[in-house]
């Protein structure tokens, strides 16, 4: 399988990551900084990067005994300082009314002061730290879920992981907490990893447990095509964080707060490899392309990243060709006779010249009278034989053209299922935000899947992506 081997040369494996990237580019002091969350947040803040606000910290059992839990705000996140993989994080969303020092979690379960104390004690004992070393606990401001992410998220907060190497962002993914991951965005525990097009910040493909998925589990909600807001800012933050942290091979974790916008969550000295599956592309190939590049400014670094590792998304093509990209089946908007907007699915048919719509659909958009009038006419006087089309059309229009309301023209269609005379009307519809005014023919498509097929005549401003 030589093709498989050449392709896998672009994939970054554990051995190469450790030996070629982490060892030489992430030196010990920087690694230690990354593992110490409170200190790294302090350093980031000094570097002008916005991080969640620290509320308070508990460094020992003595401090825990003296800690005044009533001083805590209504919502906060309790975290272990040396935690990793999102373990040991407890998030509360609000205080329970009329009960002192009791909070509520996302799943509506109640957290008492005693629960918090037990959790802090577990943190202090190192239950969630690397190598189980004794740890600190700290409380920080809770990030508020962005409305855009709400339907995609189970409990927790999604974050965006950006791999930065040599000051250039090379790959990014959106991590979505799921039921399986228990609300953490840890992709090893069942969180969803969604690849992001570097140029546009639009999500591409997604994986869960290293398997490709298209939809949010149990929902018909596409994971691709989500446009991440503040994309440029997120990339800039990631580059800046590399500068500040001294990690040459950095995994930057950035969340988006509903009010504050992008907030830096963590720097990671050993970013995982699952991001490759999410993007369906290897990291090694990308890392090699930016190695040795000398970049002077953050804006330049972001621009390089966007032009080198983006553009797989159609928007790029759309910009170049000036044409919209549509799929083989496209949603079409019409205005019905009561001036209300509605949507149907149409099949894009490059085998057809003009567009056809179903009789029922035509009635719905205000051609009921046209169809009724048309049906009144006795067509038995016409004999449909090949070549007779034009003559019949002309004859028909002369005789009945004026009598039928809103009729534009008539067309004789010879097809394998028999020949027919179809009325043509002029209508407008919206496809992929483009308004199309077209003369469409009306035919009974009642037993066909799509009430509309769109022919070549109306596709001049579009490109068709069949895999979409």
């Amino acid at each position, binding site marked *: 399988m030589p093709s498989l081997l050449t*392709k896998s040369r672009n*994939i970054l494996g*554990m051995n190469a990551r450790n030996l070629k990237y982490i060892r030489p580019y992430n030196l010990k002091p920087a690694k230690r900084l990354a593992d110490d969350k409170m200190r790294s947040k302090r350093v980031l803040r000094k570097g002008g990067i916005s991080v969640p606000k620290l509320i308070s910290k508990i460094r020992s059992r003595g401090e825990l005994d003296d800690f005044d839990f009533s001083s805590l705000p209504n919502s906060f996140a309790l975290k272990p300082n040396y935690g990793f993989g999102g373990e040991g994080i407890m998030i509360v969303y609000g205080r329970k009314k009329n009960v002192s020092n009791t909070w509520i979690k996302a799943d509506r379960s109640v957290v008492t002061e005693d629960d918090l104390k037990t959790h802090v004690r577990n943190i202090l004992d190192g239950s969630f730290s690397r190598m189980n070393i004794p740890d600190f606990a700290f409380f920080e401001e809770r990030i508020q879920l962005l409305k855009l992410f709400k339907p995609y998220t189970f409990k927790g907060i999604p974050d965006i992981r950006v791999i930065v190497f040599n000051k250039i962002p090379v790959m990014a993914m959106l991590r979505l907490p799921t039921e399986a991951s228990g609300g953490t965005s840890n992709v090893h525990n069942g969180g969803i990893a969604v690849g992001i097009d570097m140029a546009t910040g639009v999500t591409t493909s997604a994986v869960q447990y290293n398997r*490709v998925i298209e939809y949010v589990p149990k929902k018909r909600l596409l994971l691709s095509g989500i446009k991440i807001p503040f994309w440029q800012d997120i990339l800039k933050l990631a580059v800046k964080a590399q500068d500040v942290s001294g990690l040459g091979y950095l995994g930057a974790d950035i969340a988006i707060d509903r009010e504050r916008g992008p907030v830096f969550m963590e720097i990671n000295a050993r970013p995982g490899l699952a991001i490759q599956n999410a993007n369906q592309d290897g990291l090694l190939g990308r890392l090699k392309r930016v190695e040795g590049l000398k970049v002077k400014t953050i804006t330049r670094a972001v621009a390089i990243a966007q032009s080198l590792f983006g553009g*797989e998304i159609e928007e790029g093509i759309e910009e170049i060709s000036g044409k919209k990209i549509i799929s083989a089946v496209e949603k079409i908007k019409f205005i019905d006779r009561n001036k209300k907007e509605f949507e149907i699915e149409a099949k894009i048919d490059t085998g057809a010249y003009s567009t056809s719509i179903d009789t029922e659909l035509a009635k719905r958009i205000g051609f009921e009278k046209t169809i009724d009038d048309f049906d009144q006419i006795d067509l038995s006087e016409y004999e449909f034989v090949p070549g007779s089309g034009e003559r019949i059309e002309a004859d028909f229009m002369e005789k009945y053209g004026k009598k039928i309301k809103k009729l534009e023209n008539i067309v004789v269609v010879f097809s394998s299922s028999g020949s027919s005379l179809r009325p043509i009307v002029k209508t407008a519809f919206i496809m992929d935000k483009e308004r199309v005014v077209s003369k469409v023919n009306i035919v009974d498509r009642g037993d066909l899947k799509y009430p509309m097929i769109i022919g070549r005549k109306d596709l001049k401003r579009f490109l068709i992506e069949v895999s979409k």
Partner: protein
Amino acid sequence: MYDGFVEFAVSQGVPLSTVTLTLMLPIVVTIIAFFRQVVGIKAFGIYTPALVTFAFLAIGLEADSILKGAQYGFTIFVTVIAVGTLVGIVLKKFRLLYLPRVAIMITIVSLSTLAMLIAGGLLQRTGLASVSIFPILIMITLVEKFVSTQIEKGARTAVVLSTETLIISLICYFSVSWSVLVAFIQTYPWIVLFTIIINIVLGKWTGLRLSEYFRFKEITKYAEPSHKK
């Protein structure tokens, strides 16, 4: 037929089995390193599978049968992990601190192991009943590794890593019990120094692990022509 060095060691009162096992250790750890770096089987680091291998060896030596060593060792290992998993699930509800939790686990695991040994005796499997304390202790200490993995990475990972540990340990066990290899090492003990060279090569190995070809198969499957360059 023994090498001079081995004979010298034996003449100084070091038991032949000790000399042989010590010489086998570099081979065992090299096999484990190979499995990690090239095959991609993680197991619980290098120390645990090596210890488990030696527990198997000790059981096999006592039972005087290579197959029985694997058989009894396997039984004890699976018991320890199965009981560990069950107790872990139950203890999770009590929200105990780490060390007391591990202590309870080890207690229950040792009692279960003892019960299993007695059951072995009742079923006339005297070999199983008479397994000595050293290999049993090793197996029981596995529990700590298991619990910490369970807490940090979840029960699924803990079971996967245990299975990997078992597989690697069995492979190592059968390799170093292989009479041809044993005789070879006893004749040419200096050969073990070659493992250092092998490990230098492994330590510089940056290729994809075998497991990673599977992990990233989606990428190679869908890789677009534009990435081919």
